[in-house]
């Protein structure tokens, strides 16, 4: 039997050919007489019950508030669900052929002559508005690098000021930025002496949202990057100092790679959050074509128009995209995320 050692140099038995635990060649422990499982002790049973009691709190919540709605959403996505036409519980209509629509709702999202273009535009908007994620991360990293310097005065005040928007209400922020971009009395137009209606032009609306969201995410990304920067050992910098590395080299060759776990976290959460973006469609730039995101489409063309089937189909697609992107990011993370 080949002896193996782990990283600490301790001998460990080789894995068994059948994949079970134990030393290769050993027989599995015999079952008690009659082939029955060993009876659990009273203590084990009691502990299991207590454990289940604690798990059940979460489990019931998960079943009631996540699993059942998700299952209902998937079922609705294959239906003509309209709350006036089918006003009773879902089970009442399972055998009603008029209730079922097959893949019609999915097909309509991409082919319907009236709203498929709007759905596709909402996808485009959602993707373009995600530019605020890397911009916010880059800005946050820059601020973190500056505000992590030991000799900087008033750095706590600066950190506080930059972090403030994170704890402010997103709705309030939306309205305040709306004032800043207003045509008639907006600060931006007044500052540059222009009379631009930011919300009547698709591209300008997108730009305005990206600016607003980049600003809004700076505080959060900065604080996480500061935590990341502070966790980098000084020994790396001391070594680089001895080698005569410049500030930029130290940042680019040491700080940047070693905060990639933070970058990865921010990227994953940022993409998930932005794919679910809705606030700007209804608060910051309501009615503007450039602000209409996929979630806005789900609400406006599905739920609000009583076409729950369409809303459910779009929701299912959105969930699949979010899951796929997240899985992809995790799969690719080993190529660029360092572990400290």
């Amino acid at each position, binding site marked *: 039997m080949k002896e193996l050692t782990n990283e600490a140099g301790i001998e460990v038995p080789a894995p068994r050919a059948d994949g079970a635990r134990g030393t290769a060649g050993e027989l599995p422990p015999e079952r008690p007489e009659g082939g029955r499982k060993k009876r659990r002790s009273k203590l084990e049973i009691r502990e299991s019950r207590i454990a289940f009691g604690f798990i059940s*709190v979460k489990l019931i919540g998960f079943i009631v508030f996540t699993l059942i709605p998700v299952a209902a959403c998937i079922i609705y996505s294959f239906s003509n669900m309209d709350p006036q*036409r089918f006003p009773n519980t879902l089970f009442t209509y399972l055998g009603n052929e008029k209730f079922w629509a097959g893949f019609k709702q999915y097909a309509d999202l991409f082919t319907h002559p009236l709203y498929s273009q709007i759905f596709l535009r909402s996808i485009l908007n959602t993707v373009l508005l995600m530019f605020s994620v890397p911009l916010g991360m880059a800005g946050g990293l820059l601020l973190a690098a500056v505000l992590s310097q030991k000799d900087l005065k008033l750095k706590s005040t600066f950190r506080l000021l930059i972090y403030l928007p994170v704890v402010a209400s997103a709705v309030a922020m939306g309205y305040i930025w709306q004032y800043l971009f207003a045509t008639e009395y907006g600060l931006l137009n007044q500052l540059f002496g222009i*009379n631009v209606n930011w919300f009547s032009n698709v591209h300008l609306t997108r730009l305005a949202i990206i600016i607003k969201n980049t600003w809004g995410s700076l505080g959060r990304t900065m604080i996480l990057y500061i935590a990341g920067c502070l966790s980098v050992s000084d020994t790396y910098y001391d070594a680089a100092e001895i080698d005569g590395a410049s500030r930029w080299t130290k940042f680019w060759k040491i700080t940047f790679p070693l905060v990639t776990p933070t970058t990865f976290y921010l990227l994953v959460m940022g993409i998930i959050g932005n794919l679910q973006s809705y606030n700007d469609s209804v608060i910051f730039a309501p009615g503007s074509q450039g602000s209409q995101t996929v979630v806005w489409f789900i609400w406006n063309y599905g739920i609000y128009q009583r076409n729950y089937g369409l809303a459910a189909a779009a929701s299912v697609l959105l969930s699949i995209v979010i899951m796929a992107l997240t899985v992809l990011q995790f799969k690719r993370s080993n190529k660029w995320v360092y572990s400290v």
Partner: protein
Amino acid sequence: MRKHLKFISVAVSAALAATAVAGIAACGTKNGGFVDEQGIVHLTFAGRSNDSEEANYEVFINDFMQDNPNYDIQIDWSANESAYMQKINGMGSNLPDLFMLSDDQFIAFAENGLIADYKEFVDMDELDEQVYTYAAEAYCYNTETDLYGWDKDDPNCGFYGYPKDQGPLGLMYNKTLFEDLMEKYNQGKPAQMQISLPSATEPYTFDEFIDVCTKLKGEYDGEFYPCAGYDLDSAIYSNNADYFTPDASQQRITDNNFVQAIEFMQRLYSEGIIAPRGGTTGTDETAFINGRALFYYAGPWKMKDYWKQISFEWDLAPVCVGPAEGAVSTAYVGSMGYCISANSQIKEHAAYLAKYLATYEGSQRSQYRRGQAIPNLRSMAAEFSGNTKGVLSNETPKNRSVWIDVIDGCGQTKTAQDGVTTYVDAVTGKYRPGRFTYSSTWRTYFAQWLDGQGTNGKSVWKGQISARESLNALAPTMQNWLDEMKEIQNS
């Protein structure tokens, strides 16, 4: 300690399970009221509007309960249409005893049997005397013929709601700016070439409107779009056109009158009367409120906002009339009704409250005084238009009679010997198109199609396609849409 842990975990999970079960069970509870053993009527009432209207309704309901001490009304109020309809939709068939329903949502509720036909509790003759005919019959609907209107001899003709209010549009203009530009334009011109203020009784024709706007635009110093926006439905109706036949079974968007109305709207953009779509200098309601436009459109429900927001003098004129034969100024009219749940156990009591709210002088006067609606009652038309009781908290607009004219003549037609139907008044109104179909979604898509958001991607307003080409391309889809809705309606 272990015992405690076990107890806590079991208790928490039991409580959570009970909450979940109760929550699920609550989905099946009735939202309707009942009469208790003491004879007290417990009635549920749901509505929507802003805070000030909610406060109004609390007063009305309190007045009602003081007059009728055996009633206990529970109000469920929502601040906006979106939240309200979400709530109502979520109730399924367990609706409140009495609730407000927008006219463009009405058919789906009536056809699916969610709201009650409560004609047995209504005296139609009395109602006809009290309120405008069209308002009285606003929620009279025949589920067999799919047509609105009252026919006491037809058992299929149902009465589904007292009218809450009628919301007609009028052409709003900035009187201060108009007079200023008019004065500049009229200088040195002979009387016959001069411009005068818009009339309250004689609407502009489509051409006159464009002409006046163009002339006054020339007098404005700087970039200026005279009209902040124009109502599409009013333009279509005012050219004796409609989206479909009266039973909403056949599309009519390719009719000449319809195309002509869209061409009028297209001219408003192409001739710089309305700001270009998607441009960087947009005009909208805000532009009008800020005094940067001459015209916009408004319904009576906007009065309370404009009293606060507008600092200049503004007034009303009828919407413009098109050149088509038989066309009269026909403004868009929206409405809400008081409907009763089909499952209500106390329909008679709900009908009694609905009648009180729709025809009660106190509530009607209070609504118009606060700038929220025009009165349903014919007897109040003069006091509203002339403020003879002195209760209007603000006199603007002076030409309030325009809104009354729209409602008064709303839908009244005459049919000539050759079978051509025309309106009897020069100024009238017609209910919004979404009211006549099972769902009003198509209307949103229609507007978006013209704006180039459909699969053809060409905007009529930007001049990328002619009105006729665009409408011809949409016609088959529009017909399919109507067919689908009819199929659902008749299934």
